């Protein structure tokens, strides 16, 4: 950056950077070739490993032994509403003990299905009512009712908790800019990049293997979008409304609660929708530490390789996810559109006809279930099971296509995955720290360089370098293939409205599915291993690549396209010389998201036997080794943060150039 004016004319900075990069790569190559002389620069020396994991373990042990009164009372307090919800939806209340215990029945499945229909009908019309009611009916008829209600009960307690916490944290961050900069933003980044598994370990340690610890893990994981939505919503309230509240003489409290937050309601509802979906995702994963429910069914079936059962439970998760997503989205949409006037009646049931009807149906069916067993539990006679069908299908495929699939799998492993893996794992750690730091310096200056280098170095000095690189390799290749598939689809969707109409519902559905669901069908075909992990990850991570590409191309201002046409561009020229360059920053954001989602998914794929940081966390989870798990979790988070920061800096630069 110290080039004089005349020098920069003859040699533009881009070329200078090319030279720098060539030198840097050469240096790293030299280090790699000299690995006999400089072994410490390639493989981090084992004796210099900083035992962060032990420190964390010691800290957790201390917390466990000294603060158990706190964790126990938290468990007890949170257990009360949770037990209530579990009993209400799934387990029935038992009053008294033993044989003469009096049993208050759970809500009848007939009633719950009817209420789902009414809720859908109330917020989104008959079509939504049928969809939501249908999803619940599906769950009932396919024999997943009790498990699904366990899952739903956990969500129904965790979500309000997330919303309240998120709201207050968001308000705090909005009020105090220093709090946002120093505490809330970094915390949110970390909370969203630490893999879901890693949350489970300290919870398991502190709160035991119980629904309560699953709920706490869920609450922590699902809160960030609410915090962000609150901050965004509050900062988006028009300044005139802010001024008005001052002029009306609102106190600070009145202003916040009666003016700003209600005005921000549409944005807040978007946050609520995301909270619900993340909570569902996490509740499924938290089945490993005692959440029970649908996730546990999948887990058991996968462990026993019962493909059909896993698929059935997985489909029930899908049905639940779709129902919750469409319902909360319809509510958010309704909020955004605003209210319309209606005659207000003082009579409760006239004012809230849907609510009254729903309560009445619930009460009636539940009372009936005391006398009619068919209302209490879904009668066996009307349930279906598709498990044998799925099993037969898989058997048929394995019998007929085993050779093809196996050949594909082996070829992929031998020719692509293994060489790449060897390359990544052999990469000198010092070289990686240096190259990433250089990239950080070029894109964002010294501070970014220092951050990136420090985070990368953390992975090495904790002794996790090889596993880190194994994660990078699998995540990188999955994200790469996901982009290779996703960006062209996004481009096609942007150029054809008809194609977009087909793609949109598919990616909407892919997006709401909990990450667990992606593994099941792939495991059936490819069994366990890197190939399975890769394919499941691609399916999970392809969505943002498609979505952002489509959106990026479509948001190019029509005036610019008209200008291009008027200057005589062919459609091809318009696309390549106007639309694509202008959409590039947006597409890059999509790539960034794809990488982050791939990272999250790769970790969950540890369940299907990958050998990377995910496996490290997974092992730590089964051994309840908190230090090991948390450090590996941090390493994963740091990979995500490094990628995210570099991409963001790059996108910001590109944006600034485009104006």
């Amino acid at each position, binding site marked *: 950056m110290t080039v004089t004016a005349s020098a920069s004319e003859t040699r533009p900075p881009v070329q200078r950077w090319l030279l720098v990069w060539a030198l840097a790569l050469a240096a790293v190559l030299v280090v790699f070739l000299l690995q006999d002389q400089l072994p410490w620069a390639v493989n981090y020396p084992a004796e210099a490993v900083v035992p962060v994991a032990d420190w964390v373990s010691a800290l957790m042990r201390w917390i466990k032994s000294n603060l158990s009164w706190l964790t126990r009372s938290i468990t007890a307090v949170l257990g009360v509403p949770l037990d209530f919800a579990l009993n209400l939806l799934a387990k029935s209340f038992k009053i008294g003990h033993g044989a003469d215990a009096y049993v208050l029945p759970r809500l009848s499945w007939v009633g719950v299905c009817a209420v789902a229909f009414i809720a859908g009908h109330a917020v989104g019309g008959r079509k939504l009512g049928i969809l939501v009611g249908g999803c619940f009916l599906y769950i009932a008829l396919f024999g997943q009712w009790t498990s699904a209600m366990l899952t739903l009960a956990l969500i129904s307690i965790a979500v309000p908790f997330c919303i309240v916490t998120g709201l207050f944290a968001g308000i705090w961050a909005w009020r105090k800019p220093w709090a946002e900069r120093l505490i809330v933003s970094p915390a949110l980044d970390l909370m969203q990049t630490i893999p879901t598994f890693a949350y489970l370990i300290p919870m398991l340690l502190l709160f035991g293997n119980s629904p309560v610890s699953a709920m706490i893990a869920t609450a922590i994981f699902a809160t960030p979008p609410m915090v962000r939505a609150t901050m965004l919503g509050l900062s988006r309230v028009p300044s005139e*409304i802010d*001024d008005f509240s*001052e*002029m009306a*003489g609102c106190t600070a409290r*009145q202003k916040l609660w009666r*003016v700003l937050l209600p005005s921000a309601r549409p944005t807040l509802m978007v946050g609520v929708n995301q909270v619900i979906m993340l909570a569902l995702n996490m509740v499924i994963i938290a089945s490993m530490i005692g959440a029970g429910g649908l996730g546990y069914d999948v887990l058991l079936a996968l462990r026993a390789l019962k493909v059909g059962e896993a698929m059935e439970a997985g489909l029930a998760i899908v049905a639940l996810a779709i129902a919750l997503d469409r319902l909360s989205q319809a509510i958010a949409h309704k909020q955004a559109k*605003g*209210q319309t006037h209606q*005659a207000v009646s003082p009579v409760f049931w006239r004012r809230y006809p849907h609510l009254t009807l729903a309560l009445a149906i619930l009460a009636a069916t539940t009372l009936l279930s005391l006398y009619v067993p068919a209302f209490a539990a879904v009668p066996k006679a009307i349930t279906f099971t598709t498990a044998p069908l799925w099993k037969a299908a898989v058997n048929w495929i394995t019998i007929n296509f085993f050779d093809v699939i196996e050949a594909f799998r082996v070829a992929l492993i031998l020719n692509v995955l293994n060489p790449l893996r060897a390359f990544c794992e052999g990469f000198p750690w010092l070289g990686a720290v240096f190259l990433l730091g250089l990239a950080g310096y070029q894109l964002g200056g010294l501070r970014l360089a220092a951050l990136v280098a420090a985070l990368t170095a953390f992975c090495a000095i904790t002794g996790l370098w090889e596993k880190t690189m194994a994660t990078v390799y699998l995540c990188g290749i999955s994200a790469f293939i996901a982009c290779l598939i996703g960006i062209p689809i996004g481009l096609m969707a942007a150029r054809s409205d008809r194609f977009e109409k087909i793609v949109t519902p598919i990616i909407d559905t892919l997006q709401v599915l909990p990450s667990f669901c992606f593994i099941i069908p792939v495991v059936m075909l490819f069994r366990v291993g890197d190939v399975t992990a890769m394919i499941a990850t691609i399916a999970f991570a392809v969505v943002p690549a498609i979505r952002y590409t489509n959106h990026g191309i479509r948001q190019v201002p029509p005036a610019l396209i008209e200008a291009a046409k008027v200057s005589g561009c062919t459609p091809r020229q318009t696309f390549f010389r106007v639309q694509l360059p202008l959409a590039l920053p947006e597409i890059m954001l999509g790539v960034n998201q794809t990488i982050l989602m791939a990272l999250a998914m790769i970790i969950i794929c540890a369940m299907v036997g990958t050998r990377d940081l995910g496996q490290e966390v997974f092992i730590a989870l089964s051994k309840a080794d908190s230090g090991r798990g948390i450090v590996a979790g941090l390493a994963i988070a740091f990979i995500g943060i490094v990628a995210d920061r570099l991409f963001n800096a790059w996108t910001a630069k590109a944006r600034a150039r485009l104006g």
Partner: protein
Amino acid sequence: MTEATEPQAVGTPKDARPIKLACRNVWKLFGSNAANFIRERDGKASMADVTAAGLVGAVRAVDLEIRQGEIFIIMGLSGSGKSTLVRCMSRLVEPTHGKVEFEGNDLLKISDAALIELRRHRMGMVFQNFALLPHLNVLENIAFPLSIQGQDRPTREARAREVIELVGLRGREHFYPRELSGGQQQRVGIARSLATKPEIWFLDEPFSALDPLIRREMQDELMRLQTMLHKTIVFITHDFDEAIRLADRIAIMKDGEVIQIGTPEQLVVNPATDYVAEFTRDVDRAKVISARSLMRALDGAEHGGTVSPDAKIASFSASIVASGKPFAVVNGTGKPIGEVTPQAVIGLLAGLDKPRAGA
């Protein structure tokens, strides 16, 4: 230059009404250390000084007095600082330097509680984009400032219904803002700001977001309300025609400075700078200029009629031209103080002749 033209350039009688709100050397500067910058210079700085210090001068050295019951218009193009100035007057924006006096008391020195009290009961404000609360219906929106004060529901809703009646929105009580047209939304905004019976009424470009036809209708509506309510009005606009239609006095702002304050007639007849003259050039003079400005000394000719000194030329141009004789200008007691000739009127209408005090 403000001082030269401000008090009574064309001989309007001195205004005896008490001063409601006054700005005394008010500054609003943006940038680091702005408060020290202006304090060190004792409240005096030129545009060049401000720019050299790396500051942005949104409002600079504004002095003005607004009298009880007048419609005082602050007019300027976008970026001239008029919105910031009006926000300084209500302390929505804290001025960097100077005094804002409300009935003689410095507004910048009162406590937060006193300020809230003042805003609740004595100030009202209408916004350009209405600033209605989207989650409340018309009735609740209008009753909102009262509910903030802790009034019970029957009392505040009764008052809200009164102002709904006043602005002609009866029957829409239960509509939500998004169901109303722009003009109706602004009526809600006006009603809401009137619900607390404020003494001083800030209108921040209230009609700028409306279609021209609706804008005209709302201006008439404002005049109708003012004849009933006699509020002290501070009205912001960028539309000079609107300013002339409504104003008792106009302050013209440019680059954060007030460059001239005067009645529409004073601005037209005696623009202080070329900038002001530029605004006034296309104004229909006959509607702005009064007999007083056009009259000459009596020369004993026969008169075809009489007019008062404040009568606008447009109000008697047709009859004076038809009669062909000069009209006598008589004051309140019926004593002639001068005369207006048909030639002078025709000259003015034809745009041939600038009035005698023309720039």
